[in-house]
C-alpha cells in the first residue's frame, strides 16, 4: 500500500465529515448555543456570587466566566465526540460503515482517521465559541489560542475514542439518546468544569473523589493550562492514557476477528 493511498483516504474521510457537518447547520448552532447559554446566562449569574481565588494556571483573581470557559470547550468536544459516535451508529445502520470497513487499509487507520475527522469538526466549533466568548468579555492570552490547539486535538481525540467505543456497544440508533445522557451529563457535572476541585472538596468529599477519577476533569485542566501557555503534565498523562485505552478498545470492538460487531451479528441471527 502506497503512503499516498493513506494520505488520500485520510483526506477523503476528513473531507466527508466536514461536508456532512456543513450540511447540518442545526448541528453547528446547537453545538454553539449549549455552551453559550452556560457562558452568558449561567456564568453571568454566578459571576456576582462567585469569584475564583488564585489557583494555577491563573496568576490573579478571575471571574467565573473566565474560569468556566475551558470546561465549556471540553463540553463542546464531549458533545462532538458523542455526535461522532451517533454518526457512526447511523453509518452502520445506513450501511455506509461497510464501505469504510471494506477499504483495503488497516482498520485502526480508518477508525483513527474517522476520529480525527470528528476532531476537526469540533475544533471549528471551539474556535467559533472562543470568538464569541471574546466578545462577551472572556479574554485569554493571545498565544493561548494557539497553544491550546494541541491540547484540544488530544482531548477531542479522547472524547471521540470514547464515543467510538460507546457506538460499538449500541445496537440501535434509538438507544443512543439514553446512552448519550448517561455519559455526557455525569462526566460534565462531576468534573472541574464548573467548580475548582478544592471547592468541590469543601462541599462534598465523595463528589471530589468522583471528580478526580473522571477523565473529563483532566481534559478540562489540560485545556485550561494550555490556554495559559502551560502544560499540566498530570492531565496530559491521564488524557493520553485514556485516549490509548479507549482507542484500543474501539479498534478491538470493530475488529472482524473477535470484536463486538461479530458478536452482535451472532446475537441477531440467534
Amino acid at each position, binding site marked *: *500500500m*502506497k503512503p*499516498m*493511498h*493513506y494520505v*488520500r*483516504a485520510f*483526506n*477523503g*474521510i476528513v*473531507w*466527508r465529515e466536514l*461536508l*456532512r457537518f456543513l*450540511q*447540518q447547520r442545526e448541528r453547528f448552532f446547537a453545538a454553539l448555543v449549549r455552551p453559550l447559554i452556560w457562558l452568558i446566562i449561567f456564568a453571568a449569574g454566578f459571576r456576582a456570587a462567585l469569584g475564583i481565588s488564585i489557583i494555577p494556571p491563573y496568576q490573579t483573581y478571575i471571574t467565573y466566566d473566565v474560569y468556566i470557559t475551558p470546561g465549556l470547550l471540553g463540553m463542546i468536544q464531549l458533545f462532538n465526540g458523542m455526535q461522532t459516535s451517533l454518526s457512526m451508529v447511523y453509518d452502520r445502520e*445506513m*450501511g*455506509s460503515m*461497510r*464501505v*469504510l*470497513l*471494506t*477499504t*483495503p*487499509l*488497516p*482498520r485502526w487507520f480508518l477508525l483513527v482517521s474517522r476520529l480525527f475527522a470528528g476532531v476537526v469538526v469540533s475544533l471549528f466549533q471551539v474556535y467559533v465559541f472562543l470568538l464569541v466568548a471574546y466578545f462577551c468579555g472572556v479574554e485569554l492570552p493571545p498565544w493561548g489560542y494557539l497553544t491550546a490547539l494541541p491540547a484540544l486535538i488530544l482531548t477531542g481525540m479522547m472524547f471521540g475514542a470514547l464515543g467510538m467505543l460507546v457506538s460499538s456497544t449500541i445496537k440501535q440508533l434509538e438507544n443512543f439518546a439514553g446512552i448519550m445522557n448517561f455519559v455526557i451529563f455525569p462526566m460534565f457535572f462531576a468534573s472541574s468544569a464548573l467548580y475548582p476541585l478544592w471547592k468541590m472538596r469543601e462541599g462534598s468529599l465523595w463528589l471530589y473523589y468522583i471528580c478526580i477519577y473522571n477523565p473529563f476533569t483532566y481534559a478540562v485542566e489540560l485545556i485550561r493550562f494550555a490556554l495559559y501557555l502551560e502544560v499540566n503534565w498530570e492531565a496530559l498523562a491521564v488524557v493520553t492514557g485514556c485516549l490509548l485505552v479507549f482507542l484500543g478498545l474501539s479498534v478491538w470492538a470493530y475488529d*472482524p*476477528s473477535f470484536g463486538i*460487531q*461479530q458478536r452482535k*451479528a*451472532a*446475537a*441477531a*441471527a*440467534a
Partner: protein
Amino acid sequence: MEGQIRGYLWPKKAWLPRKTAMQKEAPKGLARTPVLTVKNISYYYGSKLALDDVSFEVFPGKVTALLGPNGAGKTTLFSLITRLFDAPTGRIEIVGRSAAEWGSRALEPLGVVFQQPTLDLDLTVKQNLRYFAALRGLKRNDADERMARALDALAMKERIGERVRDLNGGHRRRVEIARGILHSPKLLLLDEPTIGLDVPTRTAIVKHIHALARADHIGVLWATHLFDEVEPDDDLLVLTRGRIVARGTTKDVVAETGAGDLGGAFRLLIGGDTEEDIAA
C-alpha cells in the same frame, strides 16, 4: 433513454489502468485462474450453522451466480469475503491473496455492491464517488474521469450534482454499481443488487454487468434469488441452508436435474425448502 443503460463496452484507454500481462494475453487458458477462491468455509452464529463447508471459485471474465433463497447464507458469505467478519475455518483468497494472511490489503482488487444501500444520502452523487475514490487511493483527476465515464455508461451523468436523497431507488443502485467498479476491480461482488428495481432497470443492469465482465475481464459473484438474472452460460452455485447443493454452468445444472428451466431445477435442488423453512 433515461431508463436504459447506454452501451455495454467501456471506453478502454482512459477508463482502465494499464492491464496486467495476464489480462492482455488471450484469456483462454488463464481464465481458469480464479480471482476468488473459497475453500472449506464454515460459519456459525452462536450454535446456528450459517455456512457448511462451502468451497467454490470465481473466474475472470465470468459471472458466477450465487442462487439461494432468503436465509441461505449468501449475505454471511459476502460478509466473510469482504472481511466484515473473519472466517474461523477454511480459506478465502482474492486474486491469490489470502484474506487471513493479507488482512485488509486482500480487499484491494475487490469491488462490492451491498444488498443494503450504502450511499450517503446527504451528499451528492459526485461527493459520494469522490469519497470512495479517496478511500481507494485514486487521484482526484483520475477519479473524476473515471466517475464521469462510469456514470455516463449507466446513464447517470446528468445527475452527478444531485443529492442521493433526491434520487429514486433505481438511480441509487446505478450509483452504487458505478462506485463498485470505479477502481477497476478484478473481482466484483454483487449482493442482490437489483432488489426493489423495476423490470426494465433490472434487465439493463444484468446486461450491463455481463458485458462488463466480458469486456474488462472481471470476475463477478452475483448473489440473487431471481432466476431471470442468471444467463445460461453463467457459472452457477446453488446455496441452501448454508450448503452448496449444485455447481456448474447454468445450462448444465438445469440439464442434470432434468428440469425444463432454472426455476424448476432450483426447486428440485432446494428440496422444497421454503424461505420460512430456511429461516426456522
